[in-house]
């Protein structure tokens, strides 16, 4: 079974600092990659996704992620975080054209200090 790991359990940053959250997956074939975010008191929602094409994908609120196939990685980045980015971030992976075996990582909690 495939697995997803996220490098950090809890990250604390000051406003305007740069952010990089690590994500690695185990499956060697065709994958679809996602970052979901859960703001306090809100539903899980999609931040960005990759399923083909340009490995550098841009999402909402200034976030971007880069798919590096050789490293089995899909790291999330933002050049300057805001207090409103405080949330739980989940990396997720599915396999193939029909999105089988959807697996979430354990999540990284981001706290941004004003």
């Amino acid at each position: 079974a495939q697995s997803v790991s996220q490098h950090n359990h809890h990250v604390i940053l000051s406003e305007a600092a740069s952010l990089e959250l690590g994500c690695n997956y185990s499956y060697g074939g065709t994958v679809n990659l996602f970052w979901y975010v859960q703001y306090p008191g809100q539903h899980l929602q999609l931040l960005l996704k990759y399923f083909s094409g340009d490995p550098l994908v841009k999402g909402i609120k200034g976030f971007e992620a880069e798919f590096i196939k050789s490293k089995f990685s899909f790291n999330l980045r933002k050049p300057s975080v805001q207090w409103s980015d405080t949330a739980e971030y989940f990396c997720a992976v599915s396999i193939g054209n029909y999105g089988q075996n959807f697996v979430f990582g354990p999540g990284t909690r981001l706290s941004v200090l004003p």
Partner: protein
Amino acid sequence: EAGVAQSPRYKIIEKRQSVAFWCNPISGHATLYWYQQILGQGPKLLIQFQNNGVVDDSQLPKDRFSAERLKGVDSTLKIQPAKLEDSAVYLCASSLEGGGGETQYFGPGTRLLVL
């Protein structure tokens, strides 16, 4: 556009009791997912429906969990009998067709506490 609806929002039961959760997906979405999210962990897929057929239920504990989506729209997830370790948030999500790169839209979840 209405989002994914779930009920109840909270449920407290004693172990060995049964419980059922209901989900109504976004109108027109063919694919429906149920997840279990234990505190401090990422959501774990329990079952995925495409219309009223099961696509993936490999992680559903079938001795106690069951789910159905009879008319290809709303769905129920049942636990019978419940165990202490079933305490979690149960999330429902839907997507348009279930293709590999599709976005899933999540409901607010049902928080279950088993005493």
